[in-house]
């Protein structure tokens, strides 16, 4: 027994060499930058006197900055609308294609997935042309339906426009993942429900939905991390209509403006660290929620 486990131990130790190449890169390009961000965030560079240690002053400045928190609140609102709407559409079509209750499911699945292959920059450029206030075809359409002077880049319609763009970009990807998850729901469960004359909507909501809930929770989680870092779409829209997007529109955009345009890199580093903490906190809360739920569910079945 002991000889065998010694053999296994020696063998297992060798396994680390498979992981080392990645680990080196991981440390260099993820751990070190993060550490460096925390380090620089503790300094302030002044016009006179160079870079001096300033402790938590960049953090207090960020925490007290209503500009920063306005951006955070905006992306939270954005996430609270965009993610449920997108997942509802994705789940609906995933179910429809999984049950085979629409024709040409295979073709539709391929079409829906296409935007995943389109870079966010190009997606935002295309939609900017379509929504452009003076010449955009969608604006002409809105006018034809009686909504005259619709401006999709105005402060009230900017966020909805971004939501539409992101839904366009990501629904297909989420749909494909949910479709695959639904495929693993055992067929006999559904067959039994059919024999009991269960209506279709009940099969979807009472059988399919609970069984793919882990997948849905994970998608909420991944989309949330992405949504809180919203950057590309607002930046391209700003290129198309200068002044439409404020410098603090989203936290990521504000950090970029602070680091590059304003050249206040120390402050930007502190903002980036705070954004990271906010994202970790929100994710942790959603994870606790997830585990709490699944424990309760396990209890039900026990």
């Amino acid at each position, binding site marked *: 027994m002991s000889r065998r486990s010694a053999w296994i131990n020696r063998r297992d130790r060798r396994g680390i060499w498979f992981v080392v190449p990645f680990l080196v890169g991981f440390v260099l390009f993820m751990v070190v930058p*993060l550490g460096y*961000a925390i380090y620089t965030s503790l300094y302030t560079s002044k016009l006179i006197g160079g870079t001096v240690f300033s402790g938590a002053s960049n953090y207090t400045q960020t925490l007290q900055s209503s500009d920063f928190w306005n951006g955070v609140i905006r992306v939270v609102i954005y996430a609270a609308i965009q993610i449920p709407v997108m997942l509802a559409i994705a789940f609906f079509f995933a179910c429809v294609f999984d049950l085979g209750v629409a024709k040409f499911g295979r073709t539709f699945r391929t079409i829906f997935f296409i935007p995943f292959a389109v870079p966010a*920059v190009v997606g935002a450029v*295309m939609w900017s042309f379509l929504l452009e206030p003076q010449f955009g*075809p969608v604006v002409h359409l809105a006018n034809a339906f009686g909504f005259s002077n619709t401006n999709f880049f105005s402060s009230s319609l900017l966020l909805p426009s971004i939501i539409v763009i992101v839904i366009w970009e990501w629904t297909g990807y989420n749909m494909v993942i949910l479709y695959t998850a639904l495929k693993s729901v055992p067929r006999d469960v559904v067959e039994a429900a059919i024999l009991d004359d269960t209506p*279709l909507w009940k099969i979807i909501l009472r059988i399919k939905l609970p069984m793919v809930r882990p997948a849905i929770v994970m998608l909420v989680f991944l989309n949330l991390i992405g949504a809180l870092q919203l950057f590309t779409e607002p930046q391209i829209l700003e290129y198309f209509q200068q002044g439409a997007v404020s410098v603090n529109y989203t936290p990521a955009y504000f950090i970029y403006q602070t680091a590059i345009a304003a050249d206040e890199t120390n402050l930007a*580093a502190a903002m980036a660290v705070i954004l990271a903490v906010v994202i970790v906190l929100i994710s942790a809360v959603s994870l606790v929620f997830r585990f709490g739920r699944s424990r309760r569910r396990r209890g039900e079945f026990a």
Partner: protein
Amino acid sequence: MSVSVLPPASAPDTVEPVRESRRERRRRERLEEQDSNIPVELYGLRRGTVPFLTSLAFLFAIFTLVPIAWIIINSTKNQANIFETFGFWFARPFSLFHNFSLLFQNVDGYGTYIQWFGNTALYAVLGGGGAAALAAFAGYGFARFSFRGSRVLFYMIIAALLVPITALTVPLYLTYAKAHLINSLWGMVLPSMISPVGIYLMRVYVDISVPRDLIDAARIDGAGELRIFFRVALPLMVPGVITVLLLSIVAVWNNYFLPLLIFNINSRYPLTVGLGLWSLRAQNSGNAQLFPMLVTGGLVTILPLIALFLLLQRYWRGGILLGSIAN
């Protein structure tokens, strides 16, 4: 959760001894899919439900295709017609070839599209290829060896997904500025190789597709670990590696934030940064050629990836994507 990550349908890809032609495989896949579906009549649906749901899917397909159709149509127009004619129909003169030729020129010193295309392809191949290779090694290491600290390391890597790109990229940019790595190829490629999602996917895939017994048998035969990896494990991991490769290439191809920060001369730009810059210049500079260039450039940017996805459908349909979220 112990939801199975891969549907068994993708297993035959790796085990099946008889090679089937592409057409035969497509046929088999379609039949299997039909077979696994419950006949629609059994749901006891009201008449008209299927046409209704099909038309809903059709509407969403239109929503999906509208921007693509727009960019295809407008790549054939000159600047005036892009703005003045109906967006969803063609107009004279037919300017596609002229627009396309502009992609080979450095108009007003704002950069040459074809150069950006080459840069993007280079970054994507090196970065995506490197990411897939590192993920294959590390995924195998994590799945088939339990060395000290392997679990902690693995969870640390997964936790890195939570760190926002901005929190990594801004300090990377600051370090590059100090180390004179601004505008360097490796400054772009090396960080692109680090893909925590890739590690996760490969680990899950190895767990399913490479039997422990097979590795132990090879060990008893006296094969070295590296030899076992390349001769025994890797052939079984190919579908997983291709999926990770596909996802990594797309990630680099679409990456915007990192290159936006670390490149400041336009001969180094990838497509995303170059096109973003053009959309700003087109508004400001008053050069009538920039809008058609932006539209045609956008079209040429998305075509290779759409083609790649259509060709490699079974790799994103096979369910390996699900590995990124199940468990």
